[in-house]
């Protein structure tokens, strides 16, 4: 399972890439592998206020629907609409295809996320 450097990770198997005061958020390789073929993605509205642990969106595989929980608090700046027609992009390239961009409310929340090494350990234990 690929764990990419330069990203923050959550225990719910999301990754966060920080660019200034914005956070690009997606799901990890571990997540897409566990889900299997992703066939549907539900995105949040732009402008929506999100608290940490709120449901950011939904990813559906053949078998089940899975909530995406926000690793941080912020406001939705952009949702990746390419995923509406091509949800399988998340399987092919989970780190290159972000799901949502949030403006970061509180940079301190990033401290509570996992480093790549910590996430790697975490997934080995699951």
């Amino acid at each position, binding site marked *: 399972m690929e764990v990419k450097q330069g990203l923050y990770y959550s225990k719910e198997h999301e990754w966060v890439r920080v660019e200034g005061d914005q956070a690009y958020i997606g799901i990890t390789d571990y997540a897409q592998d566990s889900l*299997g*073929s992703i*066939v*549907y993605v*539900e995105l949040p509205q732009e402008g929506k206020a999100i608290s940490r642990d709120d449901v950011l969106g*939904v990813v*559906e595989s*053949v*078998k*089940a*629907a899975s909530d995406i929980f926000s690793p941080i608090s912020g406001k939705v700046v952009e949702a990746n609409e390419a995923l*509406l027609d091509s949800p399988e992009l998340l399987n092919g390239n989970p780190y290159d295809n972000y799901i949502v961009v949030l403006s970061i409310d509180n940079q301190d929340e990033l401290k509570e996320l996992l480093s790549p090494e910590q996430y790697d350990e975490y997934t080995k234990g699951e």
Partner: protein
Amino acid sequence: MYTDILKEHNAVRSNAGLFDVSHMGEILISGEDAVPFVNKIITNDVSAIPQNKILYSPMCYEDGTVVDDILIYKFSEGKLLLIVNAGNIEKDEAWINKHITGNVKVENISDRFVLFALQGPKSEEILKDILDEEIELPSFYWFIETKILGMKVLLSRTGYTGEDGFEIYLYLPNSCADYEKLWNGILDAGKDSGLVPAGLGARDTLRLEAALPLYGHELSDSILPIEARLRSFVKLDKKEDFVGKTALNNQLEQGLKRKLYGFEMTDRAIPRNGYDVTKDGKRIGYVTSGGLLPTLGKNGGLLLSEDLTLENDDVVEIIVRQRACKAKIVPLPFYKKKYKK
């Protein structure tokens, strides 16, 4: 080994797939009263079929709801093998034992079998390659005992995918070595035909397309078989009085309160088991099974409706995460079954 549900699904429809379904249960009923006894606990009529034929039947509670849906393999008038759903083995065995009448013996022999399902248009040609003798293969819903790769098997032309196919019961004589020999032997024989191993995920999408019921979804202890479109498997005129007969008869006389319908999504969304269904904003029922219909390139499923006026092309709403998503009623099955009869 297992790949992706959609790949496996498509392989079964185009070539063939091999499923390990050994978790299914087998209960042997033997004795001179085997047939009348089983006829008292199932809704269908096992006295009406000849030896080596297989019968599908619901098995009901007194109130007409379903204990399980099973297959009955008729070896003889004194020997019937019941194939029961994996999750219901203990419950079914207890139920059957509770209702014993006459000269019969009931044995749960589930741990004596390994069961593989070989399903798809190429099944027959793959199977012919590994039969020990050149024999005539059984037709749809018939079974024989024969040998594959030197091992004794029970072979039936049955399945749960809507394709031509076979179910292969290996009498577990001894070891895991036989299991592997059979599994690998079949995969090997099917290599050039595009045979792939297939898992339970694909098994579910395949049966959904063929509109085959799944216990716990379309059938349960709160659903009558006649509500689930299984009227033809309920033989009210057979000689034996059977458990649930009065309740089912009464419901038929009063008229059904609910019925299963097929639907396809017209809005972009995936319907799932348990989602509410509304028509013109009023709740009429719920989704019993839903998801992808890969061969059709659509999403859809089965719903249990209290509105019995529904007709093909009628618009209903499936409530997906509090949003009403449009769907239309369609005829069943979604995918036309390709059985070799």
